[in-house]
C-alpha cells in the first residue's frame, strides 16, 4: 500500500493536450474516483500511473518512488480493464496465477493466494473454466481477482463496471467497496458515472478537458461544487443553471430574470451584477405557504419523470429559465399544466457568469 501523487502532470498526444498540469495527492489506502465525461483525461491519467503511457511533463510518485521512467511491471500496481482483458486460452486459475508465475513466486504461495482470492470473490467453482465459459459478472470478478492476488501497492480500475447490466453493477459496486474496506489498498478508480463516483469514492476528482475541476469528498463536491461544470456534472437530474441579474438592496438580494423575482437574505459575499443561479431538484419544491420557501415562482410543466419514490418535474419559468422540481411519491401532474413552486433558502448556488466559479450560496 502506498500513496499516489501526481505532480504537475502533463500529457500531450500530438497537438492535443490530454492532461493539463494535474496535481493530485491520493492518500495511502484511499479510494479515489476520477470522474468526468469522455475525453476529460481521466483514463489517460490512470494509464500514466500504470506506465502504459509516457509522461509529457511532471512527475508521478507511487509511495516514495518516482515512477516516471519505470516500465509497468516495475511499478507494483495492478489494473482492472474495462474489457477485463482476461487471457482467453488460460483457465481462471491460470489467469489469476499468471502474474505470480512470471514473478517466480513459489508454487505453494501461488496456490495459497489464488485460493484466497477465489474465496473472497466466490470464484471457487470456476477455477477450471475458460473465460469464454463465464458470464459478464464472473469475468469481472476474475479481473478483480487477478489484481487482488498480486498484492500491489495500488489498484487501478478503468471503468470496471461499464459492461455490466444495471442490477449487477449496483451489486458489484458494493462488492468492490467491501473489498477495499477489507484490504485497504490505495485505489484509483475511473468512471464517467457520477453515481458510481458518489457512492464509491472516499474522495472524488472531477475532471474536464484535461483539467482537474474539483477534488473533495462526495458530500463537498455535491453540496459545494467549485464551479458550474462540477455543479452540472454531479447529481442526477442535474442542477438547473440559469443566468440572472443581481440587485443588491439593504439586507437583501433580489435575483431577477424577466418576471421571475427571487428575494433572499443578503449574502456574506459580494455579488456581481449578473450571475448564474444553480438549484438542485431537491431544493426546488412545490409551493406551500408555510414551508418558508423563497418564491413563489410560476411556471409550466415541460416533462414529468415519475420514479415511484419521487417525481421530477421539469418546469419552464418566466424569461426562459428552466428548473427541475422534486415532489415526494408519485405526484400526478400533466405536461403543460401550470405549477407554482419555490426554493429552499440557503440552497441557491451562485456562480460567476463568465468563469463559472462558485461565489456562494443564498
Amino acid at each position, binding site marked *: 500500500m502506498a500513496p499516489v501523487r501526481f505532480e504537475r502532470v502533463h500529457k500531450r498526444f500530438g497537438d492535443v493536450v490530454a492532461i493539463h498540469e494535474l496535481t493530485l495527492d491520493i492518500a495511502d489506502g484511499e479510494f479515489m474516483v476520477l470522474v468526468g465525461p469522455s475525453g476529460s483525461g481521466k483514463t489517460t491519467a490512470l494509464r500514466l500511473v500504470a506506465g502504459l503511457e509516457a509522461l509529457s511533463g511532471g512527475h508521478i510518485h507511487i509511495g516514495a518512488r518516482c515512477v516516471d521512467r519505470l516500465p509497468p511491471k516495475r511499478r507494483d500496481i495492478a489494473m482492472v480493464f474495462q474489457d477485463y482483458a482476461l487471457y482467453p486460452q488460460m483457465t481462471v486459475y491460470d489467469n489469476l496465477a499468471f502474474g505470480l508465475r512470471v514473478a517466480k513466486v513459489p508454487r505453494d504461495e501461488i496456490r495459497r493466494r489464488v485460493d484466497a482470492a477465489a474465496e473472497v470473490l466466490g470464484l471457487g467453482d470456476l477455477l477450471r473454466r475458460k473465460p469464454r465459459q463465464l458470464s459478464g459478472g464472473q469475468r469481472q470478478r476474475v479481473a478483480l481477482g487477478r489484481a487482488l492476488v*498480486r498484492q500491489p501497492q495500488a489498484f487501478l480500475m478503468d471503468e470496471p463496471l461499464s459492461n455490466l447490466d444495471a442490477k449487477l453493477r449496483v451489486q458489484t459496486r458494493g462488492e468492490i467497496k467491501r473489498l477495499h474496506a477489507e484490504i485497504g489498498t490505495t485505489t484509483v478508480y475511473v468512471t464517467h458515472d457520477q453515481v458510481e463516483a458518489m457512492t464509491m469514492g472516499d474522495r472524488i476528482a472531477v475532471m474536464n478537458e484535461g483539467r482537474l475541476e474539483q477534488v473533495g469528498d462526495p458530500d463537498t463536491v455535491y453540496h459545494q461544487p467549485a464551479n458550474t461544470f462540477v455543479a452540472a456534472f454531479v447529481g442526477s437530474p442535474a442542477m438547473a443553471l440559469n443566468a440572472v441579474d443581481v440587485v443588491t438592496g439593504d439586507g437583501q438580494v433580489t435575483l431577477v430574470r424577466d418576471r421571475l423575482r427571487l428575494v433572499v437574505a443578503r449574502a456574506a459575499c459580494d455579488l456581481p451584477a449578473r450571475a448564474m443561479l444553480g438549484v438542485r431538484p431537491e431544493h426546488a419544491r412545490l409551493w406551500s405557504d408555510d414551508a418558508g420557501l423563497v418564491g413563489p415562482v410560476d411556471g409550466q410543466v415541460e416533462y414529468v419523470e415519475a420514479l415511484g419514490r419521487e417525481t421530477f418535474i421539469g418546469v419552464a419559468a418566466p424569461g426562459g429559465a428552466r428548473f427541475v422540481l422534486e415532489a415526494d411519491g408519485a405526484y400526478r401532474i400533466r405536461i403543460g399544466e401550470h405549477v407554482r413552486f419555490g426554493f429552499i433558502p440557503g440552497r441557491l448556488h451562485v456562480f460567476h457568469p463568465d468563469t463559472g466559479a462558485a461565489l456562494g450560496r443564498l
Partner: protein
Amino acid sequence: MTGAIDRVLNHALLAFFALMALGPIAGVVLVALHPPDAPISGLALPDGLDLSSFRLAWREGGFGHSLRSSAIIAGTTVLASSVLAILAGYAFATMRFRGATALFYVFLFGLLMPFEATIIPLYYDFRGLGLTDTYWAVILPSTGLSIAFGTFWMRAFFLSAPRSLVEAARIDGASSLTVLLRILLPFGRPAVLTMVLLVFMWTWNDFLLSLVMLSGQNILTAPLSLAFFQASRETHIQLVAAGAIIVAAPVLAVYLVLQRQFIRGVVSGSVKL
C-alpha cells in the same frame, strides 16, 4: 416468393461454380483409377477401384525421392519464415522504433515485386556462392519471399489483437517475449496456422524457382519430377494423372489437418466487445 426464386438462383449459381471447380479434379481422379494399359477417351468411368496406375507411376516417376526433397524444402521454409515473420510482425505492430515505417515499406516492397523479375539475378548470385543445386538454393529464396507476406500478415493480426490483453500482461510483469509466446500466439493460433498453410502450399507448388536453381540430377522437387514424368509418359494419361494426385496429396493432407485445427483454435469471449 422472390425469396424462393432468389434461393434457387443462388444455389444454381453456386452449383455451377462448384461443378466448374470440381469437374476437372474429378476427371483426373477418374482417369487415374484406370489400369495403366486401358484405352481412355474423354471422361470415362473406371471399371473398379484399380490402383495399379498409382503403383506404376510411383515406381517410374521416382516420386518417393522427390516428395522427400519437397518436404525438406517446404518444411524448412515454413519453419524459418514463420518464426521470422512472427517476430518481425510483432515488432512492427507493438514496438515503436526508429525507421519502423521505412523498414515496413521495404517488407511491403518484397510483396509487391514480381518474383519472376528477380529469379535470373538470384540464379547468378547463388551460382557465385556455389549454392545452386542444393536445398539452400530453393529454401533461402522461398523463405525470403514468404517473410514478406508473413510479416504483413502477422503484423495485421497483432494490430487487431485487443490492446488491453498485451497491457494486462505487461502490468502482470511479462517480458515482450512472454507476451508473445504465452498471450498472443495462443490467442492468434488461427492466424498463424493460416499463414503456415499458405506458405506451405506456395512453397510446395513452386515450379519456376526449383526449375532454375536445381539441375535435376541431385535434388528434384515433386512438381519438377511430375513435369519430367509427364514429358516422358505423355501418352500414358492415367500415369500422369496418378502422378499429379501423388504430388498434390500432401498439400491436401496438410490442409485437412490444419482445417480441423482452425475450428478448434477459434477463440471468443476473452474480451467483451
